[in-house]
């Protein structure tokens, strides 16, 4: 039975007019604004924003030292490079153990690990700061207990990590692993449910080790699911704002800033002194970087439906 869409515009017109005003028009306008500076349209903003060398605002540092600040754009990239692989490997291993080793209360475990995804990211930012606090946090305490600060020659490891440029960014990245892991495990577990048990039984009969089963049997079958988690993790990492803003504010000395935070800083400056061009430029740069994973995601979703 076909329905005539022209007689049923009520299904589309209200929604799309709403979206046109509040989402589509702002996207186009931000793009235009990113080229504007004092009523002239050039690509100057892009040049200025990308060559900025003040650590609090810079996107790419000119001289990349051994420890941050490296610039917000590079911080985002480092974030993805550490976070995405660690998340995927950890979730694969944990989901595998939970499913195939008869773990008691497995759904309760999954529910507990998911807690981080439910709470406001601002609060997550506070909690991450709490974990790395010298007086009350668990991580510096463990470091001290194992004397890792002395063994590794990094005394800051047993202090409040977020007070040190060398550790602030990494404490946030580790915190984001804590926060996001439950989501990734949930999706990967759901994917594992769809793998026929017989595939694993056969591998066992041939005497394959658990590691071989995980990486040679399960991972190949999970490829689409892993790719989805990978893309969603990257998108999440690139758009991070709240947890950074709440825990370090990008500091100390710009050593943990991210793109979304720089956009906000330019915005605040502009709301006082005018000239939103630079803020818009950073927003567009952020979007362009997300575009690659986003387009893969859109393409795959369209193909599926």
């Amino acid at each position, binding site marked *: *039975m076909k*329905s005539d*869409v022209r007689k*049923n515009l009520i299904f*589309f017109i*209200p*929604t799309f007019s*709403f*979206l046109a*005003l*509040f*989402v*589509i*028009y*702002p996207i186009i*306008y*931000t793009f235009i604004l990113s080229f504007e500076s004092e009523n002239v349209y050039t690509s100057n903003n892009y040049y200025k924003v990308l060559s900025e060398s003040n650590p609090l605002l810079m996107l790419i540092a000119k001289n990349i030292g051994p420890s941050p600040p490296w610039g917000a754009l590079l911080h985002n990239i480092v974030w993805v490079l550490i976070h995405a692989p660690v998340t995927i490997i950890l979730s694969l291993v*944990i989901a595998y*153990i939970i499913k195939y*080793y008869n*773990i*008691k*209360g497995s759904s309760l*475990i999954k*529910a*507990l690990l*998911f807690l981080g995804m*439910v*709470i*406001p990211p*601002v609060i997550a930012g*506070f*909690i991450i700061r*709490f*974990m790395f*606090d010298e007086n*009350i946090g*668990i991580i510096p305490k463990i470091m001290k207990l194992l004397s890792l600060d002395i063994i590794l020659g990094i005394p800051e490891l047993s202090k409040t990590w977020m007070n040190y440029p060398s550790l602030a960014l990494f404490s946030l990245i580790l915190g984001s692993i*804590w926060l996001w892991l439950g*989501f990734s495990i949930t*999706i990967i577990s759901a994917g594992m449910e769809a793998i026929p048990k017989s595939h694993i039984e056969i591998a066992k009969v041939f005497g394959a080790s658990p590691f071989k089963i995980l990486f040679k049997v399960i991972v190949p079958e999970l490829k689409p699911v892993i790719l989805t988690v990978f893309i*969603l993790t990257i*998108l999440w990492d690139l*758009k991070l*704002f*709240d947890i950074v*803003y*709440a825990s370090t504010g990008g500091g100390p000395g710009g050593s943990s800033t991210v793109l*979304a935070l720089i956009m*906000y800083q330019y915005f605040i400056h502009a*709301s006082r002194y005018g000239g939103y061009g630079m*803020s*818009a430029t950073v*927003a567009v740069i*952020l979007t362009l970087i*997300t575009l690659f994973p*986003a387009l893969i995601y*859109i393409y795959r*979703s369209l193909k599926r*439906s």
Partner: protein
Amino acid sequence: MKIAIQRIKWTNIFLNILIWGFAVLWISPFIGIFMTSVLPYREVILYGWLRIPFDISLSNYITVLTDPLYDLAKGYKNSLIVASIGTIIPMFLAALTAYGFTYFNFTLKTLLFGLILFMLTVPQQLVVIPLFKLYIDIEKTFGIQLIDSLIGISLLHSAWGISWLIFFFKNYFSLIPKSITDAAKVDGASDLTIFFRIILPIAIPGVIAGSLIQFTWVWNDLFYALIFLISPDKYVITREVLNIKGQYHVDWGLLSAGSIIAMTLPLVIYILFNKYFIKGVVGWGVKA
């Protein structure tokens, strides 16, 4: 053979302990925050938070809820208003449009749906500047205040939530057998009737899951709140808790209490409706 069985057993016991230990370690920050919120801070520093709390004190909670400096009670109320409006409007519009995407065929369908998916991946940062300017212009021209207004920010959340809700409902509706709608069509029912009388009632579990997730999202948001809420009496809870954390000094007692208050509602929703929540998340893709 006996040895092999025993070995398997020991592996299982070991892995049970390992995974449970991991899970407890994973949620230990939550326990830490809770203990810090009910214990005197001096004691937490001296003896740590991992102990049986004999002298529980609610003074941190009373301070953050009632002290006009923090006033989380007001933030809570504002968040309830914004999250409720920001859920009802997009739920209705998205369900309507998702029906359209599921049951109608037309030339621009793929393009329009691609546009929806694109909006779902875009960062909030890309839209706030023009919206800020737009709200200022509306106030100048029509005298309607939308910046620093709960209605104003609720509308933004509504628009922002629509795209993922359309995606979510389209997936949900496509699981409903086409024979049901076809039968109604034969009886001469219009699409609006079918939507309200047949599809929505069938989709109630989906409506619940979608509402819960959207509500939690709006509740959890900080970015819009930072940009569009200016005077403290309009602050939502996520904006309000930021005031507890000072610039240089952190009073962990107060901040922990504030954090517990701000995250309780999402946590309760999650615990009560766990199945809906997980189903929604697995089926959703992601926004935000």
